[in-house]
């Protein structure tokens, strides 16, 4: 604690509601849950004095002390495993991966221990595993991935990825209160994006896990996406509107379990589906959504389902390479125009 008091900057308690960025919304959510429930605690690398690599846990140490804000060795397996053990004791850990790329180091503990515990012997683990994901900020192959597809084929893990400050706060609170393991992915490009600053309610609220949202209503085609790509989709929709196309944007918010109803309702309305995600195309969540649409909305379709995703390479570092790798606004526009004309 002595090091904590040496800090020149003492982080204040976040406001309750008010205008907040995406990162501030998550911080508010965790802070409020720690105030509300003494079993909630934070565990991860550099989450204490330093406040986390992206300052999501800034100030928690001063407020809640070392007992509930635990800096760990560089051991993602130990972070996940210890979170599971503490959850068995009735605690509610919020574990941080410094970058979501490092979730691979905790993969065994997540997929074999956390995911199967309730199923095997009825011991549900109220755990949250969160961290910054996503590319587009020139961080190279090891600080840029989107990890959802690694876990979609593992029953027992819920996967959440918000795209607005309101949802980020409501979903992190819902994740902390959830009785099962939740992977909570935060696209790092959104953390301090001025565009996402918004007024949050002063009162306590949660956003239900498992429910998508209609980010923009439209009639002509559906762009189904999540995370930072929601912004790309909305930008595309705005441009296409000028061309007379009325695009609906579905923000999935939860990737597991998928809100099939929202997907099918939208596709049955527009009859055309464009699936947009930032992870590599092959084996990505787009394939799963396409299969759901093919199986359950085939007769409503007026065109093939189209995927727009990253190319099948690691995320490269140099800006022109990364730009080529990632799906761009132009790709979405081109795909949407072709789909509309089909």
């Amino acid at each position, binding site marked *: 604690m002595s090091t904590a008091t040496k800090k020149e900057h003492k982080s204040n308690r976040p406001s309750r509601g008010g205008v907040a960025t995406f990162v501030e919304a998550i911080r508010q959510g965790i802070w409020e849950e720690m105030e509300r429930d003494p079993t909630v605690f934070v565990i991860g690398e550099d989450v204490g004095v330093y406040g986390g690599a992206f300052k999501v846990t800034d100030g928690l140490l001063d407020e809640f002390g070392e007992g509930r804000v635990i800096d760990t060795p560089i051991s993602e397996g130990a972070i996940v495993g210890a979170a599971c*053990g503490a959850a*068995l004791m009735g605690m509610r850990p919020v574990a941080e991966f410094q970058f979501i790329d490092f979730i691979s180091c905790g993969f065994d503990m997540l997929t074999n221990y956390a995911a199967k515990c309730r199923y095997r012997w009825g011991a549900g683990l109220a755990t949250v595993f969160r961290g910054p994901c996503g590319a587009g900020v020139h961080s190279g192959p090891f600080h840029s991935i989107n990890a959802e597809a690694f876990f979609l084929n593992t029953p027992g893990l*819920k996967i959440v990825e918000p795209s607005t400050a309101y949802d980020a706060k409501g979903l992190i609170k819902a994740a902390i209160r959830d009785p099962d393991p939740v992977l909570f992915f935060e696209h790092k490009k959104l953390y301090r994006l001025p565009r996402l600053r918004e007024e949050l309610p002063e009162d306590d609220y949660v956003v239900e896990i498992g429910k998508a949202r209609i980010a923009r209503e439209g009639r002509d085609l559906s762009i189904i996406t999540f995370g930072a790509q929601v912004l790309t989709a909305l930008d595309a929709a705005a441009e296409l509107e000028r061309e007379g196309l009325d695009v609906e944007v579905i923000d999935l918010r939860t990737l597991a379990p998928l809100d099939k109803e929202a997907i099918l309702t939208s596709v049955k309305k527009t009859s055309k589906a464009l699936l947009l995600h930032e992870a590599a195309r092959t084996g990505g969540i787009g394939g799963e959504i396409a299969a759901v649409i093919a199986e359950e909305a085939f007769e409503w379709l007026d065109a093939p389902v189209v995927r727009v995703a990253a190319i099948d390479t690691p995320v490269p570092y140099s800006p022109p390479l990364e730009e080529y790798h990632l799906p761009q606004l132009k790709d979405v526009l081109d795909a949407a125009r072709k789909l509309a004309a089909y």
Partner: protein
Amino acid sequence: MKKETQRKSASSAGLAKKRRGADGDGNNNGGPLNVAGELVCTTETTLTDAQMLELYRYLKLTRMVEERLVNLYRQTKIVGGVFRSLGQEATAVGTCYALEPQDFISPLIRDLGAVLVKGIRPREIFAQYMAKAWGPSEGRDLNIHFGDMSKGFIGPISHLGDMIPVMTGIALGARMQHKNLVAVAYIGDGGMSTGAFHEGLNFAAVQRLPVIIIAEHNWYAYSTPTSKQTAVKDLADKAAGYGIPGHIVDGNDVIACYEVTKKAAEFARGGGGAVLIEAKTYRRKGHAEHDDQRYLPSGELDEWERKDPIDRYERHLISQNVATREKLNEIMADVQREIDEDVEWAESSPMPEPEKAAYGVFDNSIAPPALRPKIFGGN
């Protein structure tokens, strides 16, 4: 002279360093001897006679449950494999018997003895092995892969080493709740080679958490000898790398196992932090019933059969006048009655309803069960 030295050190709480008896050195692997020159157990103990007899009951229960499992396996009543702890029962039973009711254990597959000491009934084990609906996991998982939080028992998973971080978390959670308990994780000479073992123990050591590692040195991980797992001389040497105390105990001396764990638990409970105990023992059966043990050097099994922990303890109890042969037979008959009754119960259990497979991935009051989808909205 050599025997004298070893006897002396073994009797001081069983912390003596021992040579592997199986390496062909021809001696009796140390340990205290009775007047007839036969290997017995350490006489330095705080155990009462009644406790010593209870220990005996758990040893016999462990062995006889496993023998019964083998019978059931041969009758094809067991769905999966059967994993024996023959020859190493004293480690699991003796170490676990030293714990308090509030303490937690995470045993490995060969620690049935610890599970029974924690109060899990044989019927639960039989029903698990037979994949029955009345088993604690209701047919979802095998053997001792289940848990009972009310009894401080957290079953392992197949991925060795993973329970070390989990048990570190048990101790961490307990500390936040101001509960004074120790978390005991069992691991083998093979499991100690995993990254999870290292990460978990390192974190426990850094946090000074009351985690006790029982490193069961039984010389084989499936077919791989310890010499291909690690370059350290004794597994206890690894403790130094974590800045925690490491002890060595004769894993076939049930009393020594009890005493060393009791001291370690007091140390950990008192704020001393993590402890590693290496118990030197031997796995006399193969990895599972199907394993023909072709990898064993000749003579090794015979040598360790002579050092059988239960025979040894019987000799000890009789030579120390704790029990007569008749008394021991009485205990054995009582164990046999319990096992017969519990096998009957487990056999009477139905198999699980197939559709139950869809339930319990998540809390189903929130997320629906994963029932089979209907093709084209029909069947």
